[in-house]
C-alpha cells in the first residue's frame, strides 16, 4: 500500500531539475530487458539494480531505518484512514472490522455542526490570508528602508523572538493580557470604557486569534522577503532615479516586482495550508462559550474522536480535510505555474 502511494506521487512530487532519471525509468531498470527509447544514459544506469546495491550496500543501508520510520509512522496512519469507511472497534484491528461504505461521510455531510466548523475554519483561513500574510511584506519593506545597520539588526532580532515561543506560552500571554485585570482592560478602563471578558466572548475570538498570529509570525516572516530584497539589482534603482522616480515610485516599480516571486511562492504555500489553521492554538484558546466562532474542523474532529471516541466518524472528517488540503496545494501550484511560470516543484 505505501509503495503504491509513493510510486503514484512520484511523478507529482519529484523534482525535474535534480532527479537525473525520469520516473518511468525505475521499473525499466528493475526489469533490465525493456527496450529503451530514451536517449543513452550514463553507464552506471544500465547495470542491474541488484549489483549496484551489493556494491554500494552501505549507502543503501543508510536508508533503511528512516524508511522504516516513515513507513510505520507516516504511511501506516495514511492507510489507517481506511477506518473512515470501516467500523472501528476499540481493541479490534486498527484498520477496522467491517465495511460500512460511505456511512460516516454521509453522516458529516448531513451534520449541521460540521458545516458550522467548516465555515469557521474558512473564515479564519481567509482572515489569515488577508491580514497575517501581507504583514511581513510591509515590515520587510520598512526594514529595507532603514540605513543604520545596527538598528535594523536590533529590530530583526527582537521581532524573530516570538517565533521561538511554545504555543502554550503564547496562549498564556494572550490570556494574561486580555484577562479582566490584564493590560488591555487596564487601558480600556483608563480610557473610560468598561472591562471586557475577551476570553469568554465569541465575538472577540477571531480578533485574539489573528492578532496573536501576527504577533508571533510577522518578524520571522520577513526573513525570506529581506533576502529577496538584497537580490534586487541596484542598477535598477539608479536607472529609475535618473528617470525621475521618487522613493515611493521606486518601491512600487522596482522593489515590489523584485520580491514578487517570493510573494507568490509563499502565497501558494499559504493557500495550500489555508484550512489547517492553528489547531493547537485554538485548542488552548477556545472554550465552550466561544465555540460559535472558535470551533474549527480540527478541534471538532478532536472532540468527536478523542473526547467522544467516535474514531471512524472523526477519521472521515480528517480525511476530507486532508484531501481538500492536498487539492488546494496541487491546484495553487498548477495555477501559479500557468499564471506566473513559477511553482514549488
Amino acid at each position, binding site marked *: 500500500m505505501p509503495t503504491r502511494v*509513493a*510510486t503514484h*506521487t512520484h511523478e507529482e*512530487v*519529484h*523534482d525535474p531539475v535534480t532527479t537525473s*532519471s525520469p520516473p518511468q525509468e525505475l521499473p525499466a531498470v528493475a526489469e533490465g530487458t525493456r527496450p529503451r527509447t530514451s536517449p543513452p544514459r550514463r553507464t*552506471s544506469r544500465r547495470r542491474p539494480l541488484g549489483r549496484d*546495491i551489493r556494491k*554500494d550496500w552501505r*549507502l543503501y543501508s*543508510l*536508508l533503511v*531505518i*528512516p524508511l522504516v520510520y*516513515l513507513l510505520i*509512522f*507516516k*504511511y*501506516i*496512519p*495514511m*492507510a*489507517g*484512514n481506511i477506518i473512515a469507511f470501516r467500523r472501528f472497534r476499540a481493541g479490534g484491528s*486498527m484498520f477496522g472490522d467491517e465495511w460500512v461504505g460511505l456511512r460516516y461521510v454521509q453522516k458529516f455531510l448531513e451534520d449541521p455542526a460540521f458545516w458550522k466548523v467548516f465555515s469557521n475554519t474558512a473564515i479564519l483561513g481567509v482572515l489569515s490570508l488577508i491580514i497575517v500574510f501581507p504583514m511581513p511584506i510591509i*515590515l520587510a519593506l*520598512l*526594514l529595507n528602508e*532603514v540605513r543604520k545597520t545596527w538598528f535594523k539588526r536590533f*529590530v530583526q532580532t527582537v521581532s*524573530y523572538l516570538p517565533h*521561538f515561543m511554545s*504555543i*502554550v*506560552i503564547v496562549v*498564556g*500571554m494572550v*490570556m*494574561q493580557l486580555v*484577562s479582566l485585570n490584564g*493590560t488591555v482592560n*487596564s487601558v480600556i478602563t483608563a480610557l473610560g470604557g468598561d472591562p471586557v471578558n475577551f*476570553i*469568554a466572548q465569541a465575538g472577540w475570538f477571531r480578533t485574539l486569534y489573528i492578532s496573536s498570529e501576527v504577533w508571533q509570525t510577522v*518578524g520571522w516572516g520577513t*526573513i*525570506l522577503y529581506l*533576502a529577496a530584497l538584497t537580490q534586487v539589482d541596484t542598477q535598477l534603482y539608479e536607472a529609475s532615479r535618473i528617470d525621475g522616480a521618487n522613493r515611493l515610485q521606486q518601491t512600487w516599480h522596482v522593489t515590489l516586482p523584485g520580491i514578487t516571486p517570493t510573494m507568490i511562492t509563499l502565497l501558494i504555500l499559504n493557500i495550500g495550508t489555508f484550512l489547517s489553521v492553528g489547531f493547537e492554538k485554538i485548542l*488552548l484558546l477556545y472554550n*465552550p*462559550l466561544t465555540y460559535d466562532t472558535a470551533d474549527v474542523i480540527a478541534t471538532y*474532529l478532536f472532540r468527536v474522536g*478523542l473526547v467522544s471516541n467516535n*474514531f471512524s466518524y472523526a*477519521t472521515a472528517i*480528517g*480525511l476530507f480535510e*486532508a484531501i481538500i*488540503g492536498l487539492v488546494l496545494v496541487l491546484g495553487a501550484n498548477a495555477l501559479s505555474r500557468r499564471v506566473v511560470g513559477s511553482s514549488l516543484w
Partner: protein
Amino acid sequence: MRESRSYRTFTVLNTIFLLGVVFLTMYPFLNIIAQSLSSEAAIMAGRVTLFPIGFTTETYEVVMSDRLFWVNYKNTVVYTVVATAISLVLTTMYAYAISRMRLRGRGLFIGIAVFTMFFNGGLIPNYILINSLNMDNSIWAIVIPNAVSIFNLLVMKAFFENLPLELEEAAAIDGLTTYGILLRIVIPLSKAILATMLLFYAVSHWNSWFQAFIYLSDKELFPVTMYLRNMIAGTSQTSDVAAASADAQNNVSSNIKAVTMVLTVLPILCVYPFIQRYFVSGVMLGSVKQ
C-alpha cells in the same frame, strides 16, 4: 531638495513605527516578567504593566518548591535531548543518502518523504497507531512520532548536495567506505548545518505539548509545557460552561502562572541572542529550491 526632506520625514516616522513594533513584540514578555515579581494584589488590581509592583520573589519560591514542576522540567530536558538525538541521526542518514546522485531510485526516495508533507495520516489514525504499538504513556510517544521534519530533511539534503564531490572521491580512493566518508569527511564539513538542525529540532521538541497532551496520562511523565497548559487552560477545557464562564484566571493566581511561564521560556531567552543567526541561515538554505 523637496524629496530629501520628505524622505527625512519618512525616516523619522519609520523609525518611530519600528520602535513601536519592538515595543509591542517585547511587551508581553516584559509584562509576565513584571507580574512574576509582583504581589498578587497589585496584579488583581490591574496595576502591573512594565515594572513589578509590590516587588516580591516569594512566587518564585512557591513555584520552585513544587516537586512536580521540577519533575516535569527534567522530563522536558530529557525528551528534548533524546528526541533531538533521534531526529538528527535519522535526518542525517536519509538526507545524505538521497543527496547522492548515484543512489538508484533517488527520485522515489525523495518522493516518499516529500509526499508526507502534503498528505498525512491525520490525528485519529496516528492516535490508534501509537496505542496499538503500546507506546502511549511512555517517552517514546513523545520522541518518535515527530522525529523527522521533512523541511529540515530537505534543507540538509540541499546542503549535502553542495559539498564538493571531489573530496569524497579522493577519500574513497584512499579506501574509506561510505560510512567512513560520512563520519570522517561529510559530517566534519557539515558542522554549520548540523548546528542549525540541532537548534531547529531542539526548539520544536522543547516547545511541544500536544503529543504529551494526547498520549500521556501520568502527570509524572508530563513535560513542563503540559504543566503550564494545565495551569493556564485549566477551566477553559472543561465542557462545563459554568466553570468556563468564570474568568479562566480564577483557578491559579496570575503571578504563579507568570512565574511558570518565565521559567519555561528562560532557557530559550538566554540562548536566543547567540543562536538566532543559525536559524536565519537555516531558513535561507531551506528556501533554495530543491
